[in-house]
């Protein structure tokens, strides 16, 4: 350890919205890594008087531990050269720490240290090709602090597409259950359903949900419905996590709304919604469709979103959505990686920069804020930058400031290119400012609930002892960028703003039950078309106990 077996965090203003606590001054007690109602009077204490106490942050959607991320790292030596990271000086006896490099896609150890330094203790890599899940688990082994997991890409899976095309979609739940368990994933990810397969097969893309894939009757709608029903039928802790078709295109809000309407009544999470809320197109200029899209979300409690806020500055776009990256490459002239991944998905990477003098980048920035500020239920609107696509996770404090402080937004607006903002809500002057409790919801309590993590995102009895303590500061970005204390499972990992311990986190993954009869057909598919033997496909040694679901 690393820390006392018992601890009383004394006198902080506690923001624990999952338990109805909104800034009440009270003690938080930890024993054996979990929150408890009380500890004996003589237990060690941590003085949090005058400070703000929240659960550890939970990142529902980021790209930080995958084969695609590593291809991005390899593409960016200039960023890594410019941002060296020395090994932190950990407390004596806590093992060696590691150096690394940063930039928009930091190395694994640096990623863990930097998340910890922000007070985040749980994160999910949102797009992992099952074929390369073994790599993700190896990276997570080298990513300290975080309790972490990954989402498995299934929206362009050759086997699933064949089942849907052949009228055998009823096999999907068993296949999905097997695949999640086989690769140690936590949830089902859908990226540009059918569109990546279209990119690989010469059709280039699918931009509307009823557009058929090649000569088949398979459409994005069919893929989405099949996977949503599979995930919900399996009672997975997190519903399907959807990156809609037509990301980044003017006028794509029509596709986004059609997708949401197709899944009305079904639990579903729509990710980096900002990139899917554009009006215009077909000759009309780009515009914001944030209010229309968030109206749908407000009216549909079965749907949740994370925003994917764009922050001005450097970014790296890294996604399974190969066709959108080709488009970005051909319009930006920047360097570009495309990797088609057999039978499953793709990977595209283009380094990028969002400039405040660029009209579209400013519009993207404004749309993200509009989504936050027009949302009626913060429990279903999660803070994200789609790290590193809209900006680094290190930009979260600056984003929190924009949400909590209208004057900060207005100052930024003065510097930005207003060309495309007319008619949008942000230009009309949205006055809303998030409270600390709302920040606690969109950064912790909300994502934990949406992920089905019963021990995360709150400070009730039985919760993990993941706690972040912030010293109040009029400069909100500074306050959130450097917590005074961070505890992970009761271990004090950040003291006086300095990382002092970096324990290994837990792996979060599920293992749903399924009818093994499906494996006969899956094995036949592997034998016919896969270059990896079926018996070598599963990741057998995922650390930690999976969440077992069903029989």
């Amino acid at each position, binding site marked *: 350890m690393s820390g006392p077996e018992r601890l009383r965090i004394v006198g902080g203003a506690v923001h624990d919205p999952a338990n109805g606590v909104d800034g009440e001054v009270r003690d938080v007690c930890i024993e054996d890594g979990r929150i408890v109602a009380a500890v004996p009077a003589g237990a060690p204490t941590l003085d949090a008087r005058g400070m703000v106490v929240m659960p550890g942050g939970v990142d529902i959607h980021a790209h930080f531990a995958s*084969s695609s991320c*590593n*291809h991005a*790292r*390899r*593409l*960016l*030596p200039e*960023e*890594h*050269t410019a941002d*060296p*990271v*020395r*090994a932190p000086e950990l407390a004596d006896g806590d093992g*060696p720490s*590691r*150096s*690394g*490099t940063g*930039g928009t896609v*930091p*190395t*694994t*150890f640096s990623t863990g240290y930097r998340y910890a330094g922000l007070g985040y203790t749980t994160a999910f890599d949102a797009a992992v090709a099952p*074929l*390369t899940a*073994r*790599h993700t688990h*190896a*990276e997570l082994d*080298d990513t300290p602090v975080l309790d972490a997991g990954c989402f498995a890409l299934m929206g362009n899976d*050759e086997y699933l597409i064949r089942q849907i095309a052949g009228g055998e979609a009823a096999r999907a739940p068993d296949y999905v259950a097997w695949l999640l368990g086989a690769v140690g994933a936590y949830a089902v990810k859908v990226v540009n359903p059918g569109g990546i397969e279209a*990119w*690989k*097969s*010469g059709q280039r893309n699918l931009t509307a949900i009823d557009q058929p894939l090649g000569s088949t009757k398979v459409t994005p709608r069919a893929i989405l419905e099949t996977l949503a029903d599979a995930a919900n039928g399996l009672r997975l802790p997190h519903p399907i996590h959807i990156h809609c078709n037509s990301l980044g295109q003017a006028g794509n809000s029509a596709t986004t709304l059609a997708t949401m309407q197709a899944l009305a009544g079904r639990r579903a999470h729509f990710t980096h919604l900002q990139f899917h809320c554009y009006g215009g197109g077909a000759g009309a200029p780009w515009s914001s469709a944030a209010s229309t899209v968030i109206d749908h979300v407000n009216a549909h409690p079965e749907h949740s979103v994370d925003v994917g806020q764009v922050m001005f500055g450097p970014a790296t776009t890294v996604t399974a959505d190969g066709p959108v990256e*080709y488009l970005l*490459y*051909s319009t930006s002239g920047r*360097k*570009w*990686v*495309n*990797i*088609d*991944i*057999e*039978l499953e998905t793709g990977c595209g*990477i*283009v380094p990028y920069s969002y400039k405040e003098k660029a009209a579209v980048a400013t519009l993207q920035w404004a749309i993200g804020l509009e989504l936050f500020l027009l949302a009626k239920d913060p429990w279903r609107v999660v803070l994200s930058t789609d790290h590193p696509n809209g900006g680094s996770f290190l930009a979260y404090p600056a984003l929190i400031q924009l949400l909590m402080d209208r004057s900060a937004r207005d100052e930024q607006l003065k510097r930005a290119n207003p060309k495309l903002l007319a008619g949008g809500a942000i230009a009309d002057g949205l006055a809303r400012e998030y409270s600390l409790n709302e920040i606690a919801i969109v950064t912790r309590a909300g994502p934990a609930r949406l992920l089905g993590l019963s021990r995360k995102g709150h400070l009730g009895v039985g919760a993990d002892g993941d706690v972040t303590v912030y010293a109040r500061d009029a400069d909100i970005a500074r306050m959130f960028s450097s917590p005074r204390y961070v505890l992970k499972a009761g271990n004090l990992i950040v003291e006086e703003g300095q990382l002092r311990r970096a324990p290994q986190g837990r792996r979060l993954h599920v293992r749903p039950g399924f009818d093994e009869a499906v494996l006969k057909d899956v094995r036949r598919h592997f034998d*016919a*078309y896969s*270059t*990896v*033997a079926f*018996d*070598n496909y599963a*990741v*057998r040694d995922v650390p930690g106990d999976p969440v077992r679901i069903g029989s």
Partner: protein
Amino acid sequence: MSPGNGSPAVCLGCGCACDDIAITLSGGRIAAAANACALGLAWYGDGSVPSRVTVNGVPSARDAAVRQVAEAIGGGRAMVYLAPDITTEAQREAIALADRAGARLDSATSDTAAIGILVGQRRGRAAATLGELRNRADMLVFWAVDPGTRYPRYLSRYALNPSATHVTSGGRAVVAVDVGSARGPGEAKARLALAPGDEVAALGLMRAAVVGRDVSELPAPLAAAADLARRMAQARYVGIVHDGEPGSEPADPQRAEGLVALAQALNGPTRCALSSLRAGGNRSGADTAMTWQTGFPFAVDFGAGFPRYRPDTPASAALGEVAAVLIVGSPEGVPPAVVDALAGRRVAVIGPRASEAPFPFEVAIDTGVAGIHEAGIAYRMDDVPLPVPQLIPGPPATVSVLKSVAAMLRAGAKGAAR
């Protein structure tokens, strides 16, 4: 089948990493490796490896040898060098050791396949996992390489396998581009011959043709290259295959740049992936693990207390800056230029057949071969990670020996601090 988990074994004899090898054991030795090619059979052998520990040529206790290794790499400027035939788990431990020691860190890549990686860092690349070539490529262009020589099963398993999702076996156009004496495979139904001096110009013209520039009125070989480019642009999915490793004759260093640019350009009119052949022994894993831990795929310097990229100084040159080098992996996989540069340095080897290294060394600790004696992860040439099994017992695992060195290094540092 491999003992233990019943899964087929993975051969690391070349970068194909064929994972359909059925192993038969007899008397604790490998008696047969069904499906393995000649190269694979030689790589497996009967699984025998030495299990010795020596210091200055004399058998030694392991602890003493480990202490000497720690003292060598902790005592001044040193290099940790990743040689082939170790798992990625061992590579990770070796990188950690270099970080701890403030050492140079490199692998076989910097003196072999670095050119292609550097081009990829400047331009990016259009690539695919090998199964995409198998399942989709209706046109395969082998650029100055016949995979049958150094990657014997590449053609049958990945390029020309008749079982594919999107192309029939008769539906593939196979083209060989012969550059000087570097010839494509005999299976090719069409050939283009280029003189080495015309190669880079041909690649530039092909790219120009693909993007629609007027490239008419060219001399014969270049006109044929432009014609090939136009045919490639009309295919559904093109695979361009080249050798990422150096050949017996030096290739024009601009070849890689031209191929990467051509493959990217072809994704305008059609789809294209460039397949870079890489040698075996989990070399790709070294690039991969170094990237996720340091941000750089090879040629790393921890001397400043953090990773710095020194791609202009491959290991063979960087050895001039160090007093000691720890080679982790099979010494027989160390490139000749690096072997030459070892002279005058304290050399320690931890890896398979370390004690039989074909160069002078101070310390040798034999360990097992990844995929034969040690289980873990190894990467195929296309960066697909595979589980390699332990087939038979062997010497102490590389990972555990490296952990012992790290512990010794830490203890030494604490002792010095006191």
